[in-house]
């Protein structure tokens, strides 16, 4: 055994031992999290991993993602080359691709040479980007980023240098098959004495950079190199559109106040963050200058886990309300609209919203500490089952001049679940009346619960008041069962998603449909005939988050608008899965917006850019937010807001 081999064995053992120790330490922390079964449906999970991690499906949705795609695959392929490199270092005479037949060896040499060039180009582009058109967050220019980019570039340069020296020295027969290395070799004096030493030096550089890179990973944001592929495997099998239930038993903890109260997946998520900043880029709170940045929120979870790692039991840094990196400020937790834009864009499927709700649960349920305006909401919900605390008898007021029948099992097919806003808010009652007209026109068998209707509890669940939500959900489910309700039409996307997705956790499968889809279906089946020349000017459609992103309903409302007006609606810059929240989701409807600019005004400004005459919404919260936003922009004289149902009611043929 030569001295070089001996030296390398020592270096390699030390490097691998340290890497193993780092991984043991870091991943050991993840296991402190609570259980969460992410090992079911292995086939589907493998597919997700293949499609989203190896396919880089979400990464390439942004133009510069192509650069990452190239780097990722160059890396994957060079993994083979680097494995051979390390093994060859241990046994130079027995393990080497150069021992393969010419055809195989030359092909591999060509592939590795080209891939190294692509990787180098990608790294150079990434560096140039950071100085010319940087990613949307400041840490893109962090030392961390440049260290890694430098290491990767150094690795490629050492690889070319090593091969070039060998080609120039005539010791590598694959010369012409490595065009880059061959080109570098053409600059070197062929057959010169120092070439062997040059190759040796480059070899050692390559080896040390490779092992340094490996050991740097667990300590940097580039930990995602190790975690993002498994994170795609562990991703939620269904779209994340609800929160897990809690068990209300004495002695349990409620919500997450300490980092270990997250599930292990919650902690693993934080390790998978690439800090690409796409979540913050999509976040309405970040966009309007509020302290909440989903990227930092996830980063703080990771830092809290790491900073508290060595403190047995005693947490030096609180997860909520501490100072600096690794602690989340309370106001940050309350700023989320739960719109889900962050989760929609995250390339590695980090689940931001359930984490925020977890922390809200801790504040509400364990600490009873929340913004003061929520106290009234919570009391009203618990006592009168609606957010405003209006007497339940008022729920039927909208129907005063209409012939609305109560829902009767066996006789009525659909329950029209009007919702609190639809029944109690003056503006949104018009939508309710429009829907009643539409149902009657289409000859639907429908009825309501009248004053017995109770709130679905959406806002409570998103605000972390799971205890009261559960009571309300159970009361509703009990009533639905007693009254024989099976099919439900909702007016509000929040009722829709809550009845459909959240109540499922209680073992009930209700057939819930939102009015946008229901009307679309009526039109398609020819049960509802519309005049297609309703003149409401140019209509622009705003996607409600709980209809669109949460439940994938993008096309139905657009079809309906086209049917009622004869033309497709205008689109805002951010629409469909990229839609921008009105600002009222996640219980924000009931809270003051104290920090930054107003989200609804930002959205109204975006709509006004397209100079619409009518903004079409499909959600009572969006209705209120647009109404207010247009007033704020002094545009309510020129632009009107209508619910889709109102547009359709407008287009009903006269008798």
């Amino acid at each position: 055994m030569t001295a070089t081999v001996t030296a390398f064995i020592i270096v390699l053992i030390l490097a691998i031992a340290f890497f193993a120790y780092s991984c043991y330490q870091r991943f050991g922390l993840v296991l402190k999290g609570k259980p969460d079964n992410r090992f079911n449906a292995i086939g589907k999970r493998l597919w997700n991993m293949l499609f989203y991690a190896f396919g880089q499906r979400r990464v390439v949705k942004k133009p510069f993602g192509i650069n990452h795609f190239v780097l990722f695959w160059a890396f994957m392929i060079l993994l083979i080359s680097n494995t051979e490199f390390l093994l060859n270092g241990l046994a130079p005479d027995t393990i080497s691709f150069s021992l393969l037949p010419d055809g195989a060896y030359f092909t591999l040499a060509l592939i590795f040479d080209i891939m190294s060039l692509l990787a180098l180009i990608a790294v150079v582009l990434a560096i140039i980007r950071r100085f010319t058109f940087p990613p949307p967050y400041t840490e893109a220019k962090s030392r961390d980023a440049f260290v890694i980019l430098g290491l990767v570039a150094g690795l490629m340069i050492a690889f070319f240098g090593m091969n070039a020296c060998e080609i120039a020295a005539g010791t590598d027969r694959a010369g012409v098959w490595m065009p880059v290395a061959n080109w570098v070799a053409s600059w070197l004096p062929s057959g010169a004495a120092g070439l062997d030493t040059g190759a040796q030096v480059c070899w050692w550089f390559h080896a040390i950079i490779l092992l340094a890179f490996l050991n740097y990973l667990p300590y940097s944001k580039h930990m995602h190199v190790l975690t993002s592929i498994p994170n795609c495997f562990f991703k939620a099998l269904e779209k994340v559109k609800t929160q897990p239930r809690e068990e209300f038993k004495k002695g349990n903890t409620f919500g997450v106040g300490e980092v270990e109260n997250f599930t292990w997946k919650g902690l693993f998520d934080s390790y998978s963050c690439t800090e690409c900043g796409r979540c913050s880029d999509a976040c309405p709170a970040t966009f309007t200058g509020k302290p909440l940045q989903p990227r930092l929120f996830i980063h703080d979870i990771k830092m809290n886990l790491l900073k508290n790692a060595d403190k047995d039991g005693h947490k030096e840094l609180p997860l909520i309300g501490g100072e600096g990196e690794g602690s989340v400020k309370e106001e940050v937790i309350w700023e989320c609209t739960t719109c889900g834009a962050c989760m929609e864009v995250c390339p590695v499927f980090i689940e931001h919203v359930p984490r925020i709700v977890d922390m809200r649960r801790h504040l509400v349920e364990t600490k009873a500490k929340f913004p003061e305006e929520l106290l009234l909401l919570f009391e009203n919900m618990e006592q009168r089952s609606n957010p405003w605390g209006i007497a339940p008898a008022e729920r039927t007021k909208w129907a005063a001049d209409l012939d609305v029948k109560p829902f009767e099992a066996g006789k009525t097919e659909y329950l029209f679940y009007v919702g609190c806003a639809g029944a109690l808010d003056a503006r949104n009652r018009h939508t309710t009346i429009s829907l009643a007209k539409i149902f009657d026109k289409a000859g639907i068998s429908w009825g309501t619960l009248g004053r017995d209707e109770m709130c679905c509890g959406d806002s409570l669940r998103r605000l972390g008041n799971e205890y009261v939500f559960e009571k309300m959900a159970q009361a509703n489910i009990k009533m639905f069962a007693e009254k024989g309700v099976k099919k439900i039409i909702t007016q509000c996307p929040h009722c829709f998603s809550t009845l459909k997705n959240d109540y499922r956790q209680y073992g009930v499968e209700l057939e819930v449909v939102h009015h946008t889809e229901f009307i679309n279906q009526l039109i398609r089946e020819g049960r509802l005939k519309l005049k297609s020349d309703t003149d409401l000017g140019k209509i622009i459609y705003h996607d409600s988050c709980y209809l669109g992103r949460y439940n994938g309903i993008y096309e139905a409302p657009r079809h309906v608008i086209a049917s009622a007006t004869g033309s497709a609606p205008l689109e805002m810059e951010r629409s469909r899965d990229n839609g921008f929240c009105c600002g009222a989701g996640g219980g924000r409807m009931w809270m003051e917006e104290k920090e930054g600019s107003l989200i609804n005004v930002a959205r109204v400004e975006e709509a006004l850019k397209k100079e619409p005459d009518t903004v079409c919404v499909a959600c009572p919260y969006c209705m209120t937010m647009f109404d207010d936003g247009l007033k704020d922009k002094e545009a309510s004289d020129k632009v009107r807001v209508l619910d889709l149902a109102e547009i359709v009611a407008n287009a009903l043929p006269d008798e």
Partner: protein
Amino acid sequence: MLIVACVKQVPDTTQVKVDPETGTLIREGVPFIMNPYDTHALEESLRLKDKYGFRVAVISMGPPNAEVTLRKTLALGADEAILLSDRVFGGADTLATSMVLTGAIKKLAEKEELGIVMCGRQTIDGDTAQVGPGIATRLGCSQLTLVDRIEEVDIKAKTIKVRRKLEGRHEVVSAPLPAMIAVLREINSPRYPSVPMRLEAEDTSIVLWDNKVMQMDEATIGLQGSATQVRKIFSPERAKGEILGGEADKPEDSAKLLITRMIEKDLLSL
């Protein structure tokens, strides 16, 4: 030292209507709530508990279903909740009610030194504001009404200093303990019960004191002991409203119109 907080379970009056035929309250299906003023009395008691280490006992006279409200007081942090319930307590006016409540307070004071009796200013169903003062009178203790701030309690000297909100002015007064304090809603903003406290309260039993325990003279309590009787309940006739300003273009004109009309109707004291 003990604080006794008096609470009442009342029908949610925003949901109560009067039957025009019979002149009685339609209570069917109307949910019960803790009298909103009493939530502030309880909150203030709990704040004094946190600050000075009082023990807080809550008492409520009412039907057995008032247990729900008492359970809520436990979830909020009361140390003990006692329901005063007996058929013979029923039909009581403010006098008879204050007799029973005073009886219960005296009974509690036998075991532990009484510091404060905390009441809400009034209830939303009776609106008399008489029960608190009635208790003070019957107990023969200091009586501090319309309190919107408790300045300090001197446990050693057994005195309390409070601020009373009167028309157009405040008054700061000191009084010896024990004292009955009737609070305004401005005094504080009530806390919200945490889930662990709610779960704890769900398992705690509410102490029931009927007249076997209380041993009150039946002539002084309930319907018998009441000095007043309800003859009739009715909704007052309300003159039809009028919408002003239809003809005015500018807000200034609307305002002028409104002020002119108010002067005409002598609604402004000039």
